[in-house]
């Protein structure tokens, strides 16, 4: 039982990362019906920007907390901007084109990002500064580090902030409206292209937060890290019901737990088999995912 709780703590921590990335998949799908294959790579770029800032600041005498904050802010902002640029350059011109064109373009953007980072940073693993101590506390024999707690709280806070943004602001309401009916949204005076850009910014921003936290948590990053994580996060989005924001949050946490239990009770080599079996199982029983009966409308 103690092991179970230990796996749960671990699963929720990484599940938070998956959830943050899954949100970007689901929001973009919700508004333009695009599976943004490049999204996992934005997560990766976020990790690299954060690494770069942290390594640069390591030479100065900035307090660690401040350095982390600067790195996080820089990474989130520039990754958000990257999302906007990707949308402007690669996707907007193709919104009226057949769906296949834009899907292939998304694959192209994904490759471009991976190879761009490969070119600049090389193929090997980079080591994140070891900033997170292993200090923590123990409840009933279950060890929980402060780092895990902090990251889980940050993930939840970001998700909650997103929820408020989408449901309590004009821009968020406009997002939900244009997910339902773009032309009707235009008739409200909503600049649809701009709202789509904002959606890309927010999605990429969240992915970068996950990227940096993953870097800090596992301390190893690589240009290819976005691929597998992106796949799992996408799976989380589908599991929750793609297009559905609470679904992506729940799906992400669930995938994190499955991965952790799978690795703990079976073997980490079987993790993905386990995760995808569950996905297939859910989709067979409920093709629209756990939360998404009418996919688009549940954003």
């Amino acid at each position: 039982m103690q092991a179970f709780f230990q796996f749960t703590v671990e699963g929720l921590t990484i599940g938070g990362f998956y959830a943050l990335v899954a949100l970007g998949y689901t929001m973009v799908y919700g508004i333009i019906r695009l599976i943004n294959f490049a999204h996992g790579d934005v997560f990766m770029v976020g990790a690299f920007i954060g690494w770069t800032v942290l390594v640069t600041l390591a030479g100065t005498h900035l307090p660690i907390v401040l350095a982390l904050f600067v790195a996080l802010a820089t990474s989130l902002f520039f990754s958000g901007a990257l999302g906007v640029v990707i949308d402007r350059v690669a996707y907007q011109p193709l919104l009226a084109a057949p769906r296949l064109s834009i899907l292939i373009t998304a694959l192209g953007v994904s490759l471009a990002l991976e190879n761009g980072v490969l070119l600049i940073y090389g193929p090997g693993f980079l080591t994140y500064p070891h900033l997170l101590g292993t200090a923590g506390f123990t409840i009933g024999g279950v060890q929980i580090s402060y780092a895990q707690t902090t990251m889980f709280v940050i993930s939840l806070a970001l998700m909650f902030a997103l929820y408020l943004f989408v449901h309590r602001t004009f821009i968020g309401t406009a997002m939900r409206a244009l997910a339902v009916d773009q032309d009707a949204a235009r008739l409200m005076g909503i600049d649809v292209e701009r709202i789509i850009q904002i959606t890309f910014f927010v999605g990429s921003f969240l992915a970068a937060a996950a990227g940096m936290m993953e870097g800090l948590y596992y301390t190893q990053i690589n240009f290819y890290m976005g691929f597998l994580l992106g796949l799992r996060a996408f799976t989380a989005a589908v599991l929750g019901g793609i297009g559905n924001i609470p679904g992506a949050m729940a799906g992400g946490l669930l995938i994190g737990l499955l991965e952790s239990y799978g690795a703990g009770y079976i073997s980490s080599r079987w993790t993905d088999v386990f995760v995808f079996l569950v996905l297939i199982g859910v989709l067979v029983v409920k093709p629209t995912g756990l939360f998404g009966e009418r996919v688009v409308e549940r954003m």
Partner: protein
Amino acid sequence: MKPQAPKRQPYGTLELGLLNVQDLHVAYGKVEVLHGVSLEVAEGEIVALLGSNGAGKTTTLRTLSGLVRLRQGRIVLGGEDITRLPAHKVVASGLGHVPEGRRIFGPLSVEENLRLGGYLLRHDLAEVEKRVHASYALFPRLAERRHQLAGTLSGGEQQMLAIARALMLEPRLLVLDEPSMGLAPKLVFAIFAIIQQIRAKGTSVLLVEQNARQALRIADRAYVLESGRIALSGPASALAADPRVRAAYLGG
């Protein structure tokens, strides 16, 4: 941001109505469906645009709103050339559009739908709230259902919501695309009464209808669109008496 008063521009030698549409040509792909539609709406008028299914009424309205690109022609609203404005800017110029089939945001609440109607006023939340409450005064049914999802409203209520939503910015011209479609006769009557109220408050109306009898009853003038061309136009009473209109649109 209030819809601003447009820059007045001298425009030919024409007497300027509120809306001035000249020689509209519109195509879907290679197929032209509007072949030179011209029409006018004067300040304070209710103008009906009639025509059978597929004549091009919806296309005309969507072109006015900037949802459909035109090949040729000119659209002037209140002295401002809005011909090539994107849809979201046309709204700011004072054109409210109640689209065919209502197109309310079903998964959003009634109140959220109304607030979105005031999207361009989003930097003045107090004003938005004020106008939402003004809508409730005009449509008490919506007040009762404000927290309900719009998709759960009845057809008539949805139509009222679509109209209230389009009125949030206090447009100079309200265009309505078949607001009576699919409604029971009693509701049709209510909707037409509301349209008259809206005009009485100073908003001009361009009304697309298949229900020609009702439309001609409340309209000042009317146009008849046939296969993408204006076939007839004139005072509503004259058109209602015209044998061609009676035969084709009023059931003899």
